[in-house]
């Protein structure tokens, strides 16, 4: 099928008219639903039985012939995954949490048939003296601003028409028909969008370099390897709004002159892969992918490639090697991917979240995007908040929000009356940020200044029960597992650092331990070939900075202040 702007608008209006209960009022609603029930269908809620809840509700509706009164939508993540499975009833955005399958019967009878919300199933913090707060008004949502996650939770990610209803694929139309490739790159550059995969590289500059690189065959790659443990932003975008990535990659293809894209997804994400496959199929069917899109002569083909459990494959040159069917080992750069990437051809690699911002920027302009965020880090950042924190889940905040706001207000603080110890950002390449630095704004440069890094967006909160030395040991163990072994400083240096850390946690540390760690850290940083080795010592260096006394307690007093290191637990712990 070939797509035209008229057809796109027709689908948009037709679909929007049946979505009017979801907060998108339309002039001529054609579906007289009384209620719209949104049920989260992402990995986390699905594992606590949201598909069964949905099925049971559908059965009840069919039993009573209420199909025209009640709409049921499987959506992407709402954010507060810890309260899953989440069901939201509209109008009112009433927030039901941690439901059992049978609970839906009561919601159906009381709320949907009788108009009376079921108080004891409603999220407690949304209950007020005179009613219920909407999901979007609960404390967890304070400070949040949704750009990359703009459609998640509102639309059914398995239905391209609902994506189109919210303006989906209009950015593609605008780019292909009303803009030149240079215009597209200019807007992306002006917006100041920086890579969300961790590095923070200016996206427009990368597009420009790949466009300028000579070659008649070029590639677009979406990096969905998301290897950082504790991170699930990219998984969520792919599961909740896969078309935003497809649309963006197609726009990128037009801008740099590529007709072939690959999404490299880690195999640990089966639901994301399935959704993406379905979405690509639907886009092809509607002529939004494939040959001659919008009759412009521009064609773009998209394929999925699976990783196979190697963290290093998130690095661009290793990723290309993996798609080519080789061992995923990085090579030295230059040449950069923009000149010699996949199969030696100019290649542009962006992260999932980076792409998810692109349609918004094309449609609304660079200025609209820059309204949010800080000068050098415009826009928002999606973060996966987990660990020892009350509100666990996915958040999207304007850049510049402080870590304190994130932990205390959005996150709701540390549970069980425990004290905050640190927030770990950037995974095995990042660091632990202690309480003295909590007022740091979250943006690329400010986090780098304090010796940590933004990283892809995993934010793991640690409380007083977590041992800083053990965390450093944990990450080093991870790195030793994942080092590809190609270069000696990383292969050997990380092993030696791990040995020293194990010695310290098992009571064999001595006065040479810390100086040896620091020396090895410097060598590994300076002499390693790729980012994995270059940043491998960060967890050690950052914990040494904030928690040096804890290292010393292990070494000098043979004592683990947090009571974690088993070999030392016979010695007094916990500030005794």
């Amino acid at each position, binding site marked *: 099928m070939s797509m035209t702007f008229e057809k796109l608008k027709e689908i948009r209006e037709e679909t929007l008219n049946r979505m009017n209960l979801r907060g998108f009022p339309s002039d001529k609603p054609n579906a007289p639903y009384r209620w719209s029930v949104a049920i989260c269908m992402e990995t986390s809620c699905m*594992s606590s039985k949201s598909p069964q809840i949905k099925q049971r509700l559908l059965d009840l509706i069919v039993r009573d012939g209420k199909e025209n009164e009640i709409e049921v939508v499987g959506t992407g993540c709402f954010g507060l995954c810890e309260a899953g499975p989440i069901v939201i009833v509209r109008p009112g955005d009433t927030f039901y949490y941690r439901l059992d399958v049978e609970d839906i019967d009561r919601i159906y009878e009381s709320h949907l048939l009788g108009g009376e919300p079921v108080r004891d199933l409603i999220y407690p913090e949304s209950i007020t003296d005179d009613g219920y707060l909407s999901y979007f008004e609960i404390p967890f949502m304070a400070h949040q601003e949704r750009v990359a996650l703009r459609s998640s939770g509102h639309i059914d990610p398995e239905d391209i028409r609902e994506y189109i209803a919210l303006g989906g694929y209009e950015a593609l139309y605008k780019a292909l028909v009303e803009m030149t490739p240079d215009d597209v790159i200019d807007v992306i550059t002006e917006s100041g969008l920086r890579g969300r995969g961790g590095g923070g590289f200016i996206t427009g500059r990368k597009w420009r370099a790949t466009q300028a690189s000579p070659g008649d065959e070029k590639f677009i790659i979406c990096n969905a390897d998301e290897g950082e*443990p504790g991170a699930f932003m990219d998984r*969520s975008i792919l599961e909740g709004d896969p078309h935003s990535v497809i649309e963006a990659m197609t726009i990128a293809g037009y801008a740099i002159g590529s007709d072939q894209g690959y999404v490299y997804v880690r195999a*640990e994400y089966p639901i994301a892969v399935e959704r993406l496959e379905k979405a690509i199929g639907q886009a092809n069917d509607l002529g939004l992918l494939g040959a001659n899109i919008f009759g412009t002569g521009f064609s773009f083909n998209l394929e999925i490639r699976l*990783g196979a459990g190697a963290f290093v494959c998130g690095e661009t040159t290793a990723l290309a090697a993996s798609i080519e069917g080789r061992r995923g080992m990085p090579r030295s750069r230059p040449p950069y991917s923009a000149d010699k990437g996949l199969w030696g051809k100019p290649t542009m690699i962006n992260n999932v979240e980076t792409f998810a911002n692109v349609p918004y920027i094309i449609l609304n302009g660079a200025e609209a995007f820059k309204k949010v965020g800080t000068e050098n880090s415009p826009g928002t950042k999606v973060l996966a908040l*987990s660990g020892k924190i009350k509100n666990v889940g996915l958040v999207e905040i304007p850049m510049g929000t402080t870590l304190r706001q994130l932990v205390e207000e959005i996150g709701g603080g540390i549970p069980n009356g425990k004290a905050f110890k640190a927030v770990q950002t950037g995974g095995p390449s990042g660091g632990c940020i202690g309480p003295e630095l909590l007022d740091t704004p979250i943006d690329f440069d400010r986090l780098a200044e304090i010796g940590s890094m933004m990283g892809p967006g995993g934010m793991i909160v640690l409380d007083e029960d977590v041992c800083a030395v053990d965390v450093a040991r944990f990450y080093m163990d991870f790195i030793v597992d994942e080092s590809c072994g190609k270069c000696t400083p990383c292969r050997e240096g990380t092993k030696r650092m791990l040995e020293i850390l194990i010695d310290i946690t098992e009571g064999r540390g001595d006065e040479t331990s810390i100086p040896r760690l620091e020396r090895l850290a410097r060598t590994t940083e300076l002499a390693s070939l790729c980012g994995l080795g270059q940043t491998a010592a960060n967890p050690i260096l950052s914990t040494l900075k904030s928690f040096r006394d804890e290292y010393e307690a292990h070494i000098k007093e043979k004592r683990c202040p947090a009571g974690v290191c088993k070999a030392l637990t016979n010695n007094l712990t916990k500030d005794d």
Partner: protein
Amino acid sequence: MVSHINSEERQKEIAAFERDLERIKDGRGMLMLALHLAQNRFGYVPSDVQRIIADTLKVPLSTVYGVVTFYSRFTLIPRGRCDLSICTGTTCYIQGAEELLKEAEETLGIKDGETSPDGNFSLSTTRCVGACSLAPVVTVNGEVHGRMTVQEMKKLLADLKKQYLSQPESNEDK
């Protein structure tokens, strides 16, 4: 071990796998996909299957072997019919994943990375399946079980043992 089965069943599986390969063999960079297909179908990537892949995709056998051994999802020994995996990503680790692993190793009598001799159970660790909100997390044949405690792990293991040990062995010779 299950790797020496030589039943008709296996011949059929091989034939089906060869048909899968035929479908993809002309694409570019198909080795990883071929290996995923093999791992999913056979539960591992045995050496005769590696040879078939090498011949069909026209890549050296040494390359195939090199790639299989590089990626942790491809294995040279068969995964069990029940493939239990404990997430040891950061969030799960600080929420007690080690205890769960210990419990599983003790109950199943196998270590991380091993398969039980009867082919029923295999045990592995992964580094984050993206369900950190439910940490600590384990997966059973890919299905996520969240908010695990040692108590619940005991129950899960008991259920799995009942389920997999009561079923008659599949028709594989040993």
